[in-house]
């Protein structure tokens, strides 16, 4: 568990303190994938660097599994850092070393001297990230996705309990992004590793995260389970992120269906409800007429969900809504 208590951070520029993160509390549970989303300059790189103390907080406490990080001296901090892997937007591999030596680097830093042990561990890690055939290449010979896989293998070398991902897919094309995210999800599942990732793409959060915090100008404006935040965004910044992921939603926000008769409602289905014909059953039983204005069916991590914007007319609308709610469908009224 990573626990921030009343942590804040400001930078001193030209003799003035410029706040980067307003005081906040945050707890990240062991084994979860926690996303921090924000625009550039929102403070998310600072926040993720507070975890391994690449950035020191201006105040407050940061504890990892009960170990108070800010009180550690330098050698103790180095030992703790070996338990926290980190991958980067620009990979940050050693250009002068082969793939195998890049992955072996953290092992050597931790004092491992035995060449056989190192070789075996490197082979195992490269096999896990699907780069077994590339051990003797240099980073410049690899594609971006392959470089990030080397970064992941390197980050896992010392069997960390936490993996920090600093915009890990922002420099990759969509297809490569998907495969790297799949790999991260697999690592999280199989190694029971806590993953903290920062991103400016809601799609990244939707694919892999369990919980998310939305950061805006140094303030955590919203946080919670991804499905809740994604389906019912509260803060304007969050809505903007969600709309980027769902282009058709934007229409709902900006142009209310003024000319559409009836009540405009947004229905959200989660999990099994997505696959059952609840809507058609309720409509038939209550004799309500409906029209689909916008909709989407997709997944949030493993959870299937659907979101439909409907116009409903007829005497039985209230009865229909009650029946839908009883079936576990969430309903928001956009316009009466």
């Amino acid at each position, binding site marked *: 568990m990573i626990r921030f208590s009343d942590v804040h951070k400001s930078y001193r520029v030209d003799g003035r303190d410029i706040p980067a993160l307003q005081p906040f509390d945050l707890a990240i549970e062991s084994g979860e994938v926690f996303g921090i989303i924000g625009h550039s300059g929102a403070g998310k790189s600072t926040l993720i660097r507070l975890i391994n103390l690449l950035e020191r907080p201006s105040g407050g406490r940061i504890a990892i599994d009960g170990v108070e990080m800010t009180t550690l001296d330098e050698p103790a901090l*180095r*030992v703790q850092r070996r338990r926290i892997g*980190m991958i*980067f937007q620009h990979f940050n591999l050693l250009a002068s*070393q082969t793939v195998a030596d890049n992955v072996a680097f953290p092992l050597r830093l931790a004092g491992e001297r035995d060449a056989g042990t190192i070789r075996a561990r490197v082979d195992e890690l490269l096999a896990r990230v699907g780069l077994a055939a590339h051990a003797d290449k240099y*980073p410049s010979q690899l594609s971006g996705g392959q470089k990030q896989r080397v970064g992941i293998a390197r980050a896992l070398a010392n069997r960390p309990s936490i993996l*920090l991902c600093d915009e890990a897919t922002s420099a990759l094309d969509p297809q490569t992004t998907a495969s790297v995210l799949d790999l991260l999800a697999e690592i999280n599942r199989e190694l029971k590793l806590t993953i903290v990732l920062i991103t400016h793409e809601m799609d990244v959060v939707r694919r892999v995260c369990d919980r998310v915090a939305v950061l805006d100008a140094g303030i955590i404006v919203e946080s919670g389970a991804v499905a809740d935040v994604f389906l019912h965004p509260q803060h304007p910044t969050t809505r903007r992120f969600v709309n980027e992921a769902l282009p058709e939603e934007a229409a709902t926000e900006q142009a209310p269906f003024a000319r559409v008769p009836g009540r405009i409602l947004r229905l959200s289905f989660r999990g099994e409800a997505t696959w059952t014909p609840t809507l058609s059953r309720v409509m038939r039983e209550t004799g309500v007429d409906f029209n689909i204005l916008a909709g989407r069916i997709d997944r949030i991590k493993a959870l299937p969900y659907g979101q439909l914007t409907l116009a409903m007319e007829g005497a039985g609308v209230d009865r229909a809504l009650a029946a839908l709610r009883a079936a576990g469908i969430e309903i928001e009224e956009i316009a009466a």
Partner: protein
Amino acid sequence: MSAPVLQTLFPHIDDWAEIGRACVDTLLMLGGSLALTVVIGLPLGVLLYLTGKGQLREMPKLYGVLSLLVNVLRSIPFIILMIVLMPVTYALVGTKLGIRGAIPPLVIGAAPFFARLVETSLREVQQGVIEASQAMGASVWQIVRHVLLPEARGGLIASTTVTAIALVGYTAMGGAIGAGGLGDLAYRYGYLSYQSDYMLVTVVLLVVLVQLLQMLGDRIVSRYNRR
């Protein structure tokens, strides 16, 4: 080329072996001073880098002092530095003349220059790679040894080449005040005695030496560059 032809082309040169000895002297001065320059300049350059603004061991006062020292030594023309340093040279090696007498001023003149080049090369190393190493729990010494120096290898070799070539120039200047070598020949025979054939031969030899150093340096750089 037979002896009469050489005699026609170079009427004043009667002892080619002397030119050979001068070459060897120049190479010895160069080799000795370059080795010591690297031994002193490399750590100094690393120290300049580490204590610089925003770096791993930022120490503005120490950096200020080192930087000033380097700038002062670099701004004194070598021939004047050599004269100023004569008492120091005598105290260090027991003579102000010959190869041994030349090496202390050569090193004191070249090491600050090399250190500055080292500092610049290290600054070329991506900040992100250093940050990644810190995140992996590397100590400053481990970062210097395993990240900075290997990653900057190409730049460091190129810096060594530039320094070696500067030292060739310094040794020739040193020749004028008793260091021996090719510069000494050029100065005594070529300049003071108006024997332009001596001047020509020494200049050609110096040009060839510089060319060889540059080629060797470039070849090593391309061998190690992985970018």
